[in-house]
């Protein structure tokens, strides 16, 4: 007898439908079942939780299935396939094309649609909802011709939408019917604190305001509010809640909940035994859940049931933590204190805009829930504490007082840390020990910091402390050293090591301090006693090669060079017998120069108008460019001019690691700007600025820091970004890993650089201005200084004798280093 494989049909490919398929593959359901996923949209599942970041990262980064298919061949994803009917009796679904598909089990994951209240004018051009990538695209397009916009709905998604409008440069209003923002999650006092934060960002908040009509004849011109002045807006976004997409189930006469949603039991089974419903379209016990985590739980339950398991959906943790408009907001457990006899403990600081509330059981022993606004750092400890029923410490107020942050508490192993993916503290530790990672923090991200801390604490507890001291001579990180030098105004290594270190330094701390002194003082890297701190490349202003010779790279800003320039470089290479090669940074490398030849080579380069390219330094290397709008038929901006300007502005800037830039004249990105530490890509309106890219062993794509900037703003942001990096990164830490190491990552960089939350903007710009003003060519300064020139001899006692250990052979018509076997010891050499 042949074993017949069964077929599961999944309708809908949103986050929950995708999770169902993932779990089915992981847990082996596809060993016995074929799965067909029918998605009405052309786009496979994407991360709707992070929808607002679409403008920055694009659709590809949001996709949950970038390849567009599952690796398991037993799963078929059919996009653009709309289901129009379900026949439970015949067990078939019918597509809009008329095609019928048989199923053994049907999983409905059709999600929800945005609710638009029936107000006059709701169908006018200029009225949008906020749910899909297509919605965001339409909003972005309309925003180009708009000056101001309003979001109807001050809940979680409404504030996200408001942030999107603000980022698009619109004067933004938030209109909320309830008396406070985020009425579901926070209480009245928390809502007030949140409103103040939001208003400080320049948004207008209208709470307790009812939208009566959208005004306008052919398009939106304003909106009328009950008992208030109407608003002049060009664009309206409705974000007033969602409704379950249950029409297929209704037509198939499946039971639905009173308030909408496909009614399912605790196994997520509908009124038909072969049909299941999960996510926002489902209503377990009549209740619909508009968050992704409960949907994920439902998906897992159905997979478990289809495998013959006993899983059930036990209601959901509606805890939320997010950063809205730069403000931390969190609520968890019984946030509104509805449990009988519940007590409240609150802390409020109107000056800094922090509000925290704990809801505690009548006997004062257990945490039931809470609200955090303005500072949600304690969420990672408080939410699991509430969920696990662990007894409260004696002074629960310490949990929310400043400086407290719940840090003193230890979570039990079984405490759930990631509620989206049901990962416990024990899971995280077990995975870390096995060298693996859990799914914790991969959905909403709110538990990322807590997850990191659990791993760190675990290793610290085992005595495996990660020592971030730069080396044995200084118990400080590079950033701390930078601050120490700045605060005390040190100008020499001797003073620094005497005051803050031990011994006489090494090849790690000396170049790091040389770089810090160069960043703070300017001046020549070979001046005075700093020369002996430099790595050989900086010490000889050239790059050492395998046979002890050096390479010379003159600066060719933006890669633009005249025929005369090319000829001069060619002549110099020919006359000194150097090997030449084009570099990856659009310049020319001259290799095989013996140390004593360097000044003569520089002399000729400097005389021809060239200068050091700093190819030897932890410093700005090049700013690569395409030919841009001057020549290219696709170019929209003059990328060459900008690349030259940026390269000349930042040339010579000493940094924790080498720095590269790129400027592309259009979105075709021929300059590979996103593979650089800072990359600029031209748009119709200006420039998009990307940061944190690099090639090399660990390639990283730069991510968008800010978009559509004019040139002056671009330069201002770059000044701040680079100086902030120079000041705070670790030794040999490139921009990509520096950004990742900051708490908050790229968002933090944006807060500091764009929003200037630390108030450092002017200081960073001034530091860069000092660098720009203080720049000089190190090669020229060296050949004009006899004292520095004296170093460039092969032997102190035989300045003109070439080192006998350096020799060359010929390869492909040019020189190549020959291996030296070491000094030949004359007979009886060991006298």
């Amino acid at each position, binding site marked *: 007898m042949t074993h017949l494989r069964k077929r599961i049909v999944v309708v809908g490919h949103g986050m929950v439908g995708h999770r169902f398929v993932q779990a089915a593959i992981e847990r082996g359901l596809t060993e016995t079942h074929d799965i067909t996923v029918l998605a009405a949209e052309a786009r496979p599942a994407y991360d709707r939780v992070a929808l607002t970041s679409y403008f920055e990262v694009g659709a590809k980064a949001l996709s949950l299935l970038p390849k567009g298919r599952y690796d398991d061949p037993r799963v078929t994803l059919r996009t653009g396939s709309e289901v129009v009917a379900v026949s439970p009796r015949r067990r078939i679904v019918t597509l809009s094309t008329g095609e019928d598909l048989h199923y053994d089990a049907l999983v409905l994951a059709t999600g929800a649609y945005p609710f638009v209240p029936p107000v006059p004018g709701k169908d006018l051009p200029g009225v949008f909802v906020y749910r899909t990538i297509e919605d965001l695209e339409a909003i972005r397009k309309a925003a180009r011709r708009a000056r101001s916009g309003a979001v109807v709905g001050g809940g979680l998604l409404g504030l996200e939408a408001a942030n999107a409008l603000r980022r698009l440069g619109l004067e933004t209003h938030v209109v909320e019917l309830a008396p406070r923002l985020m009425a579901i999650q926070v209480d009245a006092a928390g809502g007030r604190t949140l409103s103040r934060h939001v208003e400080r960002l320049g948004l207008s908040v209208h709470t307790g305001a009812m939208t009566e009509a959208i005004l306008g004849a052919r398009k939106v011109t304003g909106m009328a509010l009950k008992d208030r002045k109407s608003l002049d807006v060009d664009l309206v976004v409705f974000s007033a809640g969602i409704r379950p997409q249950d029409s297929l189930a209704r037509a198939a006469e499946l039971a639905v909940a009173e308030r909408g949603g496909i009614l399912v039991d605790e196994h997520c089974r509908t009124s038909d035994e072969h049909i299941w419903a999960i996510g926002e379209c489902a209503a377990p016990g009549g209740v619909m859940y508009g968050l992704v985590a409960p949907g994920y739980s439902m998906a897992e339950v159905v997979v478990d049931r289809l495998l013959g398991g006993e899983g059930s959906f036990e209601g959901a943790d509606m805890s939320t933590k997010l950063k809205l408009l730069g403000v931390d907001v969190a609520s968890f457990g019984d946030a509104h204190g509805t449990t009988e006899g519940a007590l409240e403990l609150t802390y409020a600081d109107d000056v800094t805009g922090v509000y925290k509330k704990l809801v505690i059981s009548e006997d004062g022993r257990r945490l039931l829930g809470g609200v955090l606004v303005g500072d949600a750092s304690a969420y990672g400890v408080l939410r699991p504490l509430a969920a696990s029923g662990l007894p409260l410490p004696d002074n629960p107020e310490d949990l929310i007082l400043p400086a407290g942050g719940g840090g003193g508490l230890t979570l039990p192993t079984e405490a759930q840390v990631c509620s989206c993916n049901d990962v416990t503290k024990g899971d995280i530790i077990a995975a870390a020990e096995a060298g693996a990672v859990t799914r914790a923090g991969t959905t909403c991200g709110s538990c990322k910091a807590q997850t990191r801390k659990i791993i760190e604490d675990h290793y610290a507890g085992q005595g495996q402390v990660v020592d971030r001291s730069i080396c*044995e*001579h200084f118990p400080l990180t590079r950033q701390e050293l930078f601050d120490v030098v700045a605060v005390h105004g040190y100008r020499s290594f001797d003073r620094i090591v005497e005051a803050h270190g031990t*011994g*006489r*330094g*090494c*090849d790690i701390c*000396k*170049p790091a301090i040389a770089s810090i002194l160069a960043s703070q003082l300017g001046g020549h890297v070979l001046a005075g*006693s700093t*020369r*002996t*701190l*430099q*790595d*050989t490349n900086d*010490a*000889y202003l050239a790059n*050492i090669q*395998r*046979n*002890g010779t050096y390479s010379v790279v003159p600066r060719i800003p933006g890669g633009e060079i005249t025929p005369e320039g090319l000829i001069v470089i060619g002549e110099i290479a020919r006359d000194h017998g150097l090997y030449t090669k084009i570099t990856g940074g659009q310049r020319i490398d001259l290799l095989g120069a013996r*140390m004593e030849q360097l000044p003569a080579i520089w002399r000729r380069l400097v005389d021809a108008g060239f200068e050091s390219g700093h190819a030897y330094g932890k410093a700005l290397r090049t700013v690569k460019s395409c030919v841009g709008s001057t020549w290219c038929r696709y170019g929209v901006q003059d990328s060459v001019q900008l690349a030259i300007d940026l390269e000349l502005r930042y040339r010579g800037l000493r940094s924790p690691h080498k720095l590269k830039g790129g400027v592309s004249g259009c979105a075709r990105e021929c300059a590979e700007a996103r593979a650089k530490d800072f990359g600029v890509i031209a748009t119709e309106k200006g420039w998009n600025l990307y940061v944190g890219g690099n090639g090399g062993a660990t390639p990283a794509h730069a991510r968008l820091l800010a978009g559509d900037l004019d040139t002056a703003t671009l330069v201002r942001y770059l000044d701040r970004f680079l100086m902030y990096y120079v000041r705070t990164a670790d030794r040999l830490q490139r921009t990509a890993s520096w950004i990742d190491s900051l708490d908050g990552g790229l968002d933090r960089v944006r807060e500091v650089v764009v929003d200037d939350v630390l108030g450092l903007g002017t200081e960073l710009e001034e530091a860069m201005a000092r660098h720009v003003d203080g720049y000089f060519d190190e090669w020229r300064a060296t050949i004009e200084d006899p004292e520095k020139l*004296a170093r460039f001899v*092969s*032997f*102190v*006692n*035989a300045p003109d*004798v070439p*080192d*006998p*250990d*350096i020799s060359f052979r010929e390869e492909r018509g040019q020189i190549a280093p020959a*291996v*030296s*076997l*070491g*000094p*030949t*010891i*004359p007979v009886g*050499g*060991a*006298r």
Partner: protein
Amino acid sequence: MTPVCRVDQIEVEGGVAALVDGVAVAIFRTHDGNVYAMSNYDPCSRASVLARGIIGTRGGTPFVASPMHKQAFDLRTGQCLDDAAVRVPTYDVRVDEGVVLVGPRLESP
């Protein structure tokens, strides 16, 4: 012994290369005023570069780090601190009235 240079031609915590009987010798001066001499040839990278290394201390041991791949060599003995099997020959060296004199290659200690 061969006079090679004045001691003040060597920076404190710096090095110079000298040609002694046709062989490249690296001469270093440390912060405490001592002068050391060893072969300029780095056996790890097979290049004549040690005089251009950074001088420092590990614990109480004065060392030079090869500018090529950063292996450290004890200035007193030439012993590689990162690889017990590697040692660089050292030379007798002395400062006489401000002049650095380099003598014969020393036997292994």
